[in-house]
């Protein structure tokens, strides 16, 4: 089998899907790209068994056939070649691959394409369309709150549910939670899924910045994303997502509004002085003043700042992990935020005050127990 393709065009497509390939995969063949040529089209697949990405590119070829090509060597070769047509010649008996360019010839040994695991397809699925712009926003707003705890797989992904009125994305690590809801995406599906973090990170990296359409199709086990000439299939997390609706407090009526920028930069400064492991900071709201403080007893470091805020409720002193607050505020696209509290040992809520009217964002963060024995 033989085909000719532009080196830079191929590199561009391969770079888009290369992120799937892990450095030490479960089966060695997954260190390869699967090349399948037929009718002047080259289809390339990369996979880690959980997630697979597929891309297509036009090539000059009269034959059809398939081969698995070592990803690392091929990418390094293409990266260092000047733009030009390159010819791939494949010996289908020995799986030898020869790449010829104007500069010379490179030989590498491929593997039998039939050893490459079969990529699943979605059948009997639900499907909806969403713009890349909105989908990226939903992912960016939630993915940071997912958990790394492999013992609780349900929390290592983002929960997604579409109903006839809205689309809801939820992520939590057990200490904080983000619920991102949109009313301009709706489909009467009502069948929630949990998409693994790795797949979403890959999507984040490959979703084009120009506003195109993403087609999402899924059933109980797999989800399928399609945009431009890239497709991604991922196995879903087959676990029950924690009952998040029930832990969102409804009666937090101690309200504080504050300028997001000021609050965020103050937190950044104060957290420098907090303990490096716990990042613990103390918020003290008295009247219309917010005092933020932290201390690190090991180094005798301490800091405190005062900010003015609008406050409606009793005075309150509450402790938080500053990292959580900072990550959340970093993702808020609003000049002002509204925080709602009830008690020092109960969840605090953060809402953007002025944002996109199609968006409904709720962020929840659990406090640390400030024990005062007085």
């Amino acid at each position, binding site marked *: 089998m033989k085909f000719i393709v532009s080196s830079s065009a191929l590199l561009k497509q391969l770079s888009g899907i290369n992120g799937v390939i892990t450095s030490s995969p479960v089966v060695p063949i997954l260190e390869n790209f699967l090349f399948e040529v037929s009718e002047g089209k080259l289809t390339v697949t990369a996979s880690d068994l959980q997630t697979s990405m597929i891309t297509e590119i036009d090539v000059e070829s009269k034959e059809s056939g398939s081969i698995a090509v070592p990803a690392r060597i091929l990418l390094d070769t293409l990266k260092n070649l000047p733009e030009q047509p390159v010819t791939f010649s494949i010996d289908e008996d020995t799986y030898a691959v020869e790449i010829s360019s104007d500069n010379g010839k490179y030989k590498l040994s491929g593997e039998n394409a039939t050893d490459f695991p079969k990529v699943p397809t979605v059948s009997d699925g639900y499907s909806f369309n969403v713009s890349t712009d909105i989908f990226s926003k939903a992912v960016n707003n939630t993915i940071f709150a997912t958990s790394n705890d492999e013992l609780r797989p349900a929390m290592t992904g983002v929960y997604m549910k579409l109903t006839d009125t809205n689309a809801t994305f939820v992520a*939590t690590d*057990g*200490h*904080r*939670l983000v619920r991102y809801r949109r009313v301009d995406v709706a489909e009467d599906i009502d069948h929630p899924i949990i998409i693994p973090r790795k797949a979403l990170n890959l999507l984040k990296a490959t979703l084009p910045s120009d506003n195109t359409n993403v087609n999402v199709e899924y059933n109980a086990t797999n989800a399928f994303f399609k945009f431009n000439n890239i497709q991604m299939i991922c196995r879903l997390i087959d676990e029950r997502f*924690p*009952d998040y609706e029930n*832990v969102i407090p409804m009666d937090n009526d101690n309200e504080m509004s504050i300028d997001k920028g000021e609050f965020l930069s103050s937190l950044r400064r104060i957290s420098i002085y907090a*303990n490096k*492991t*716990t990042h*613990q900071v103390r918020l003290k709201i008295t009247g219309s003043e917010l005092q933020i403080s932290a201390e*690190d*007893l*090991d180094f005798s470091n301490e800091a405190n700042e005062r900010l003015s805020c609008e406050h409606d409720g009793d005075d309150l002193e509450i*402790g938080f*992990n500053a990292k959580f607050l900072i990550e959340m505020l970093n993702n808020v696209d609003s000049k002002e935020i509204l925080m709602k509290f009830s008690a020092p*040992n*109960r*969840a605090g809520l953060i809402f953007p005050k002025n944002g996109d009217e199609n968006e409904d964002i709720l962020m*929840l963060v*659990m*406090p*640390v*127990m*400030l*024990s005062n*024995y007085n």
Partner: protein
Amino acid sequence: MEKYSTVSRSIVHMDLDSFFVSVECLRNPALKGKPLIIGGSSRRGVVASCSYEARRFGVRSAMPIALARQLCPHLINISGDMEAYSKYSRLITDIIKDDVPLFEKSSIDEFYIDATGMDRFFGTVKWAGELRQKIMKESGLPISMGLSINKLVSKVATGEAKPNGQRHIPYGMEKAFLAPLPIQKIPMIGDKTARFLTDMGIFNVRTLREMPVEILAAALGSNGVALWKKANGEDNSPVIPFREQKSISTETTFQKDTIDVQFLKNVLTAMVEKLGFKIREKQKLTACITVKLRYSNFDTVSKQCRIAYTSSDHTLIKKAQELFDQLYNRRMLIRLIGVRFSELVHGNYQISLFDDTEETIRLYEAMDKIKHKHGSLKLMRASSLDLNMRLKDSIPSFNGNE
């Protein structure tokens, strides 16, 4: 080729004389001059500290109490009050802190002081002697001290000065001072090493020093080289100022070896509860928990496990039980059980969204409040109730205190 600066240091070592006994005598002067030991009163107990009067009968610390009684039938045995000892220890630390910029508290009753440079103003011997008098006057407890160019020689000098004395080894006299002493006087030489060296014909430090270092290295490995350096009075270790506590632990030896797994687990729970309250009170979190078991044949096994930073009893108890289940796999009697929390950091418990309910958080808060106000033994899990007497009796390990 000298790598280290040759400026000689002045290191003071101070050690309270039979600390626990001295405290008891201070609290009850009637005990003065009597053969007295501190140690658990149970059959299994060992002597934690003994008065000089008791030593005259051959009683030594770490000796089983039953044996001590045989040696000295009219021995007075007090079970000991760690809280009081800690209090006095803190008192002395405070006195030293007032006068000394650089000191190390190496145990509940021992201090190293770096007095380098003091001679320019006061004369080190005079200054250290005055500090020692001040401690004795203000605390009422006898303390001995040694002064030399390093920690090792000073510690040995203190040992020679005891009881209630002081000893100065002038610069250059270290080797001459150590030479005639029996090898057991060198810290690090325990019973086993001493017997090993005696079998080689080495009885005093001079002989040890004159041994070719290669022979010691061949016989004892890297320890041999360290030993030889010590015999030569060499010790470059610095005085390390008081450090934040990095771990907390407790252990208990049973009156009678047991194989009752439920009982062992209850003891474990009670211990974790006790330590858990302690770290919460100090506003700390732990990231590593260790469980230790000693079988009746003295085989000691331990297993540790990293966890996310926490101070919550139910997480810690669950982990401790898991470790115990993994560890206890021989059907053999258990003699001792212990728990340690390490990698402590300052901080408070991060409440979890799904694992903690509001009720449990409030319950723990209320429990800690009561324990703080009325003592940690006033409120506990029902499973710990009947164990409490035994745990209270056992001598707490010093690791956890101070």
